[in-house]
């Protein structure tokens, strides 16, 4: 065991980007497939423990949308060894804080603890990974919490549905079709089987990245990781273990053909009986199949224009373009372009549409980069007396300008400064570093991108920006949504 870890050890070489300081880290795989990333930063006696599960709304069944996010809520409910409500209490009374979030691509959990509580954090996350436990009260409670969340963030938010409406039209094949918050009817319809299957399929060691940053001793941390994580069953043996804990004797025997009594409850993986040993060995060798959707290849070929009536006072326009996945090299130039258009009050869109022409109360653009595709959105809320068509014309003029002319040298410098500043600030906390390392490993295949990403931005030229504008801001292939007040609100 030890040897494997040592040989798997990989210390990243030096690559310095601009004025950015290098983030040193150690990474390795555990035999059961958990990818571990450790970053030591001892200036503050705190440590961030995080686990990224590579599962998001895009992995959901079309009949169970919203499930990944719902699951995130459920996984704070407790485990075989942690009672209901105790999970967060344990963190808080030990001087820490915790949270989680879910996107289309991943679910991310983290704790920030005093560094002498690192082992507690590891234990908590190992409990969540190995044998989380959810009872009916927990399911009902979290269902209403999630519904409240949707009401607050989507339904009660003017224009709150634009995200869902936009993605539904940009992606008719890929599961980016629906938003992570999903459908409440689907959540209501969920059965016990759904919970079991989702956990069984996606909450497994081979789908997890354990990223830890902060005041830690690398060797000691590895020992604890061995203790709590390396000891977890590999492949399909984890399902066997969970069934051993949860199924009745009869059900277990029926499923596996071996009696529960053949297994050692105290040291499951080292069960002595030959039948048990054989089953554990064979299941350990079988990986769990984690279904992932095919990459998005759908091309937008026309302008899709729709009107949506909402509880609003002022009409609004949302335009969506298809951008490449975040891993595509063009993403850097696209981000740059977006800063020119919409980064701050002196940006082009704000200066023209909002301040000079006063056609809109708010107008902005933003890029939404995802694992399988990207989206570029332009949005404006009209000021009274301005038509959405006029605003669109104005947006189109800005887009044309972007395609026709290079941005000015002054804009170029200002955005470079801004990107650099934002980027460096994003690595100012251990929690931020842990998350950046995990994201880069999972999406880009190299955690070390934390050290090279800024270089990529700094290599972007004014010509690159013009080129991506021409390539991706396709005026004959985009989605245009007009939001209008519902009749009774007029």
């Amino acid at each position, binding site marked *: 065991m030890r040897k494997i870890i040592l040989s798997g050890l990989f210390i990243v070489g030096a690559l310095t980007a601009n004025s950015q300081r290098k983030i040193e880290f150690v990474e390795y795989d555990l035999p059961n497939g958990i990818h571990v990333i450790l970053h030591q930063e001892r*200036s503050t006696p705190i440590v961030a423990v995080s686990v990224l599960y590579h599962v998001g709304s895009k992995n959901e069944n079309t009949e169970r949308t919203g499930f990944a996010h719902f699951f995130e809520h459920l996984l704070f409910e407790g485990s075989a060894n942690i009672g209901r409500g105790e999970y967060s209490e344990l963190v808080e009374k030990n001087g820490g804080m915790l949270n989680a979030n879910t996107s289309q691509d991943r679910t991310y959990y983290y704790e920030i603890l005093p560094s*002498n509580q*690192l082992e507690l954090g590891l234990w908590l996350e*190992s409990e969540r990974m190995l044998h989380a436990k959810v009872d009916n009260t927990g399911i009902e409670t979290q269902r209403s919490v999630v519904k409240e969340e949707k009401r607050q963030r989507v339904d009660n938010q003017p224009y709150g549905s634009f995200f869902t409406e936009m993605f539904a039209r940009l992606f008719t094949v890929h599961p980016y079709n629906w938003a992570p918050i999903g459908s409440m009817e689907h959540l209501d319809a969920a059965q016990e089987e759904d919970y079991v299957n989702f956990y069984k399929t996606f909450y497994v060691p081979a789908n997890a990245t354990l990223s830890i940053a902060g005041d830690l001793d690398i060797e000691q941390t590895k020992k604890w990781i061995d203790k*709590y994580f390396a000891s977890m069953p590999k492949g399909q043996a984890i399902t066997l273990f969970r069934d051993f804990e949860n199924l009745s004797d009869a059900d277990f025997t029926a499923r596996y053909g071996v009696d529960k009594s053949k297994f050692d409850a105290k*040291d499951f993986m080292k069960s002595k009986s030959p039948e048990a040993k054989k089953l554990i060995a064979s299941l350990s060798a079988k990986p769990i199949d984690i279904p992932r959707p095919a990459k998005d290849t759908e091309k937008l070929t026309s302008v899709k224009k729709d009107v949506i009536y909402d*509880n609003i006072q002022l009409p609004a326009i949302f335009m969506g373009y298809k951008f490449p996945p975040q891993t595509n090299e063009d993403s850097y130039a696209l981000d740059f372009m977006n800063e020119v258009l919409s980064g701050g009050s002196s940006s082009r869109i704000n200066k023209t549409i909002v301040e000079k022409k006063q056609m809109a109360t708010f107008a902005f653009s933003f890029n939404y980069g995802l694992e399988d595709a990207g989206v570029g959105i332009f949005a404006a809320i009209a000021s009274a007396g301005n038509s959405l068509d006029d605003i669109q014309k104005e947006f189109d003029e800005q887009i044309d300008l972007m395609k026709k002319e290079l941005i000015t040298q002054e804009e170029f410098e*200002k955005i470079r400064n801004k990107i650099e500043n934002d980027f460096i600030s994003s690595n100012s906390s251990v929690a931020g570093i842990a998350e950046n390392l995990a994201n880069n490993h999972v999406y880009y295949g190299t955690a070390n991108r934390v050290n090279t990403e800024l270089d990529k931005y700094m290599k972007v030229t004014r010509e690159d920006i013009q080129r991506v504008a021409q390539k991706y801001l396709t005026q004959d292939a985009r989605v245009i949504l007009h939001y209008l007040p519902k009749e*009774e609100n007029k």
Partner: protein
Amino acid sequence: MKKIFLFIGLILPVLGSAQLDRSVRPQPGNAPNINIKDSEVFTTANGITVILSENHKLPKVSFDIFTGSDPRIEGNKAGLSDMAGELILSGTANRSKDQLDNEKDYIGASLGASSTSISMSCLTKHMDKGLELMSDVLLNANFPQSEFDRIKKQNESGLMAAKSDPSAMARNAEVKVNFPNHPFGGVMTEATLGNITRADVESYYRSTFTPKGSYLVIVGDITKEKATEVVNKYFGSWKGGEAYINAAGDGNFNKGNRVIFVKKPGAVQSVVYISFPMKIRTGDNDQLALTVLNGILGGGGFGTRLMQNLREDKAYTYGCYSSTNITENGSWMSMGGNFRNDVTDSAITQMLYELDRITTSLVEDDELSLTKSSMAGSFARSLERPSTVARFAFNIIKNDLPKDYYQTYLKRLEAITKDDILDMSQKYFTAKNCNIVVVGNEEILEKLKVFDADGKIEILDAFGDPAKEMAKADITADQLIEKYILATTNSKSMKEVAKKMKKIKSYSETTELSMAQVPFPLKSTNVWMAPNKEGSKLEGQGMVFQKSYFDGEKGAMTSMQTGKKEMTAEEIAAKKKASGLIPEMNYKTSGMNYELMGIEEQNGVKMYVLKLNDGETETFEYYSTADFMKMKTYSISENDGETVETVVTYSNYKDVNGIKFAHAKNISMGEVGFTGKVTSIEVNGKVDYESFK
């Protein structure tokens, strides 16, 4: 071979037996030490103490100048220092405010200021540009008159809002009673704000921001050599006199409990603060244990004694907290919350009980350890921000603390015992010499007498000054209303009034409202059409935020957030009691309840106070005793379980078509204040009444 096997056989059980019992929860390791590097300290020729805390983790650097001047007793210019702080970044001899903003944005720097500090942070590579801006501000801030006027106006709306904010009122009373003749006891009022001039601000700035005795805290990616160089380059030419030194006292210690009451007409809840000064200053050996003590009593979270007793057990309140405020210039303890009128006295009894309990018996192990761990956690997390490290370095130097004061924080925290906590409470806390400040409805006053040592309750106003007792009115309510109607219509008799009013068929008024928090002005339109149609609208930036109408029989309100709501039967009934261009004319016949309370003096102006009740809302109207014109209205309404107070002040009355209309209307709602200027009034013009529906 055999040997080797044996060897493995011996060692395997040792390795393999590390079988894991996952139900065992890990124990924490030893409380970690903190690696706060020692700071470099050096002094410049012009008298700045530079504290340099190198941290090369990120290529960022921050510079914070703190003056060495002590806070002043501001007397009749209370609020001067706050105003100066707000104005420091408003321009220099070389750069306008806009230029300053633009140049700062270009390098992605942040620049900030307060009444005693100026700060700048940026990427190391933009340090020179950032320091150029910072030093320009420090050396050449020029306080343009236009910005002075703008900030003064902003403060005026702030004060307006403060007058109806019970927590602000309670805070004002609290500092005044604990710290008379002390810098903490200064509270800005309309009068003191009025006394402040641009010259005062400038002179405050020049005498406070002087290099002598000041501190420059540098944190981040910079070497000592470079720091020395830039300090000389950018701050070397900074000149000034001696820092202002004033050793502030410890505050006023009572003999026996004192009850201080601030009247808030119509309040359904009281704000209660129980407080007393403490003889302790920043960095005292007792500070940490005293903070733990506060954490157990009511420092935060649901588990504290105050929360458990007053919220969880008795349900007197949503939250009840305590705080120990330990500063270099004076310290005090305070506890309290918001309580329903009928339990205000019981809540005070319980808080005093908790104060007494914690000074007479040991705390429990559980509550001590919970408080210690949560303090350790938040201390540790706070350290990640370079600003925290800067603050520590600064505190150590300024208060002459041991160099490892913060390094050993967690260990010292861990070592605190139950006996230490009792020692602290007996040394600093008391349930017998408290200032009990209550802001609330006068009806509860009688029940508070038992808490006052001599049974005499002091009444203060919203700014903590002794309230003037209301004098008996010399006329009746009906007489007041009639005098007002005659005055406002410039008439000699009610007959003449009736004649004048008959000629008015419509009225429309437009007011421009400005508000500190909103960058653009809002437009408010109010219309009236004979005999009893009304409409109002609030708009801005092309949006209609809110509109309403009442046609005498029915009406509705449409708001951007909630959509259109028809008036309820109750609202219609209430509205009918106060409708008309001059609603006062109908009070007698509409069924409005009204009562003349007396004469109140505010800021040297005497006003009749008329209390109205339309069945929905209680309103107080204030009329000048000199000319009977309406000066303000004050009303409290309930909306979704929350009480909202609205104060409207009227001034600058001018004649339009022979009738006096106020041309300045300031409105404050809850914590929001608007300054209103009437821009047009039209009588008998055309009104697009439909647009209000």
